[in-house]
């Protein structure tokens, strides 16, 4: 650019032409910059937010494992039989952004371990993991334990929600024990359908007799016109002292280590 201008100095351009040329050049450079910034934004949104959230969520799982202490067994000492441990223990809800536990969903991959954190505001969902709707029940309680998670970006914690098959196990680990939910069905609704969070999902006014797990995420992927809802029912419970269910023992050991 500079060289070309020097080459043309034989016919000296008027001051108006110089100003015009400079203005056009600055404008062009600003437009190219805007284009590069937009491309960088796409990269940041689709790739970097996942890197950031995955790292943060691994750190939360480590903290949670440390809080469990060294005495938490990571393998089941007893044979995986149908031992009845009685009614599930329901812990008190932590404050906003407090860690409730870890969710394991083998259908989403052998390494699928995501923290469940109290609250569904942006600060929780964007970095900390699955967000618990604070006005719904806690894991194991009769009623509806409802969580939200991003389908895309920021860790994409529920990206594979549509791949769940009825009968799939969903494991929730808290400091008290392991809650085994069985996936029942999913539903695609409009974002205004708050009745999916009712104690008996979509049946306002009914008194619950069972423990539900409801997960909500964006639908379609990369869109937000609808919400995809996955419903599961509590199948069994075992206290932390009994160790994890045999099916996820390896995952638990990998996630929380040996205490």
């Amino acid at each position, binding site marked *: *650019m*500079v060289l070309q201008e020097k080459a043309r100095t034989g016919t000296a351009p008027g001051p108006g032409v110089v100003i015009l040329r400079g203005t056009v*050049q*600055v404008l062009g*450079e*600003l437009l190219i910059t805007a284009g590069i*910034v937009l491309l*960088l*934004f796409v990269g*940041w*949104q689709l790739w*970097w*937010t996942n890197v950031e959230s995955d790292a943060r969520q691994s750190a939360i799982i480590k903290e949670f494992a440390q809080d469990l202490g060294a005495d938490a067994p990571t393998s089941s000492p007893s044979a995986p039989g149908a031992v009845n441990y009685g009614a599930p223990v329901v812990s008190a809800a932590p404050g906003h952004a407090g860690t409730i536990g870890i969710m394991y969903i083998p259908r989403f991959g052998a390494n699928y371990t995501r923290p469940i954190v109290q*609250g*569904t*505001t*942006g600060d929780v*969902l*964007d970095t900390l993991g699955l*967000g618990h*709707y*604070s006005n719904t029940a806690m894991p194991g309680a009769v009623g509806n334990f409802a969580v*939200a*998670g*991003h*389908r*895309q*970006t*920021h860790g994409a914690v*529920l990206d594979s929600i549509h791949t769940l098959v009825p009968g799939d196990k969903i494991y929730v680990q808290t400091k008290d024990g392991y809650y085994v939910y069985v996936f029942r069905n999913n539903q695609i*609704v409009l*974002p*205004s*359908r*708050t009745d*999916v*969070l009712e104690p008996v999902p979509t049946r306002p006014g009914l008194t619950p007799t069972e423990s539900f797990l409801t997960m*909500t*995420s*964006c639908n379609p992927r*990369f*869109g*937000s*016109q609808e*919400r995809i*809802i996955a419903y599961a029912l509590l199948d069994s419970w075992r206290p932390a002292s009994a160790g994890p269910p045999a099916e996820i023992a390896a995952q638990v050991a990998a996630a929380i280590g040996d205490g």
Partner: protein
Amino acid sequence: MYAWIFRHLPGPLWLRIATSVLLVFAALVLMAQFLFPWMSTFTPFTDSTIGSATQP
């Protein structure tokens, strides 16, 4: 514009190149910290909750 900035950076050529790299890096950090999170509020990817997105 960028040529003008580069000409007006102080020091020898290697220092001006180093300063430019530093300035570009600073711009990237500022964008990732402030500009992109703000822009992302206009994208539909992060609406995964039912009802109001800013539920307490």
